[in-house]
């Protein structure tokens, strides 16, 4: 070795600061372009009179908000959104926990059950919702057919035609769709519990329910909270299921904020009002996310 070749130098790839930026840049660009810019644009539109027919930007202050607040449908869709999200979240967490227990259990043919459980999550939403649309059809519904033949009902229920059953149907499909995700998240928490702890509880004389409520659930609460957070956010911001299934009907009984913003802003053409409605998703979502994340942190700190 000679001194002439010079000392070995750290290349660009050895510098952590530089590397960090290179690695982060694509996602930063991505988030700014696809989340940041549209978000700012939505705020700008909310204070303007932009419509699909007249894209020129004129500042109108809080005019859009005043109109939105005067509209009874907005309040209805806000209530619907909260109800839809809350009920779906609870059901998603409960069913997700039950499914997760099935997923971790050891039995014959468990690969097939796992496949079936994960199927709703892998099917495109629009596609699966269309099949649900047929399932709940007013005349040809196989659900009604089964119930009729079992003698439980006399005439078709017309699931999507009545406010109560329409909301129930929308919630059912949303729960069906998101439960697998929650199940997989909770399952990750379940397998992380040391086997010893469950066995110790068995030796200590705890039965199934005591083990479930005093050992398993407390130890998986953080992941259950995460599953709930995902379920809530994906339900709160989602409009696919109500849109495809009921188009917000009957008489706005299943309109949620996202679908109402879409109907108003895009189909109705009033972009300004649509943006104002959509902005309501943000603070509620933000507060919800912070609340659940804080709950998670408190649990971890225990």
């Amino acid at each position, binding site marked *: 070795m000679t001194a002439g070749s010079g000392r070995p130098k750290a290349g660009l790839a050895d510098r952590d600061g530089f590397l960090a930026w290179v690695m982060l840049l694509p996602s930063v660009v991505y988030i700014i372009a696809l989340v940041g810019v549209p978000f700012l644009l939505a705020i700008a539109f909310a204070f303007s009179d932009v419509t699909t027919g007249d894209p020129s930007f004129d500042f109108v202050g809080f005019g859009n908000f005043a109109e939105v607040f005067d509209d009874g449908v907005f309040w209805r869709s806000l209530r619907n959104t909260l109800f839809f999200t809350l009920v779906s979240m609870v059901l998603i967490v409960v069913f997700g926990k039950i499914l997760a227990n099935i997923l971790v259990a050891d039995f014959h043919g468990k690969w097939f059950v796992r496949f079936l459980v994960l199927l709703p999550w892998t099917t495109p939403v629009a596609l699966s919702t269309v099949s649900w649309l047929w399932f709940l059809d007013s005349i040809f519904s196989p659900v009604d057919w089964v119930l009729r033949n079992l003698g439980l009902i006399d005439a078709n229920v017309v699931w999507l035609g009545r406010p109560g059953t329409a909301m129930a149907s929308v919630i059912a499909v949303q729960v069906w769709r998101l439960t697998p995700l929650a199940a997989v998240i909770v399952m990750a928490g379940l397998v992380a519990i040391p086997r010893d*702890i469950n066995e110790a509880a*068995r*030796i*200590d004389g705890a039965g199934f329910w005591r083990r479930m409520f005093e050992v398993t659930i407390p130890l998986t609460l953080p992941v259950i909270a995460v599953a709930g957070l995902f379920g809530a956010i994906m339900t709160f911001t989602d409009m696919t299921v109500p849109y495809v299934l009921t188009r917000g009907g009957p008489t706005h009984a299943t309109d949620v904020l996202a679908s109402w913003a879409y109907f108003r802003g895009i189909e109705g053409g009033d972009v300004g009002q649509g943006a104002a409605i959509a902005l309501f998703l943000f603070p509620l979502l933000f507060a919800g996310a912070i609340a659940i994340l804080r709950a998670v942190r408190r649990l971890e700190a225990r």
Partner: protein
Amino acid sequence: MNTVEVKGLVKTFDGHVRARRRGRGDQVRALDGVDLAAEPGEYLVLLGPSGCGKTTLLRTIAGLEQPTEGEVLIGGNVVNGLPPRVRQIAMVFQSYALYPHKTVLDNIVFPLRAEGMAKDERDRKAKWAAELLDIQPLLRRKPRQLSGGERQRVALARALVRDPAVFLLDEPLSNLDAKMRATARDELKRFQERVGTTTIYVTHDQAEAMGLGDRIAVLEHGRVRQVGTPQEVYDDPADTFVATFIGSPPMNLVRRDGRLVGFRPEHLLPVENVPADARVRMPFQVERMEYLSGDRHVYGTVTGIGEETRVIARLPATVGTPLEAGETREFAVPAERLRFFDADGGKRAAAVPIGGSP
């Protein structure tokens, strides 16, 4: 009546499910016909290398595993098929398995709450157990705020409050550092002497086994090789496995006409240190020496009593004979210290006379 007894216990584990479906069932016999009994108040240690089935045996007694064949009896009743909670057993796991989200007090009363005991009664019991194990100041803490030794005591307290017929301890010292282990071992022994409950203790550490056990059951490949007091298994090993597993360094074995002649390293001494009336002499070629806590461990080769074999001699500090690597010296073993084994099978065999006395 024995507190715990197992009869003809066999436990097989299936290999991979797919392998079984394809018809090449690779079964593992974790327990291969175990007969064992623990007497009331006894401290029985299950000792063996990893994979010998000692933990499986303990778990089968606890009811966490169901035996493939054979019977488990607790207090004279067959408990096969019964869940752990009705077996009157308490178990301390290797990891202690404390409930991390519960305080120490809640951990200790958990089994009592599962029994449905009244609150003041279980608080009284918890206090008694905490006092016995000296952990009253810790009752409000969470397990992760405790040191390894404290966790172990909490796990013992949780086991103790149930008044079990038998304690099952699964390597409870292996998570402690070497220094803690000696103190904890002493504590465990004194604790059991005070409570007087039958205890079955699993370990792979022979020092723990010799120190704690009233009797030791040596296991290998799912079979009990020998059951006896620490002195019996050390001085009179039933076969070559026990002879070489117990003792550090292990027993020396020299092959001679279809027999193995065994003697412990501490009995192989320079000839002038062995009483002259009944000794077996052998020339010993010294290869190298280690100086360990006052003793000299001498590695070398012996000839004369059988085939030329590498052996180890352990000279206590009281033996001052100067030794050099490379030299050959006359060593000897007291004749009554020789043990004989079958060369094939390794079982104990009758003594054969070995010439070469003085």
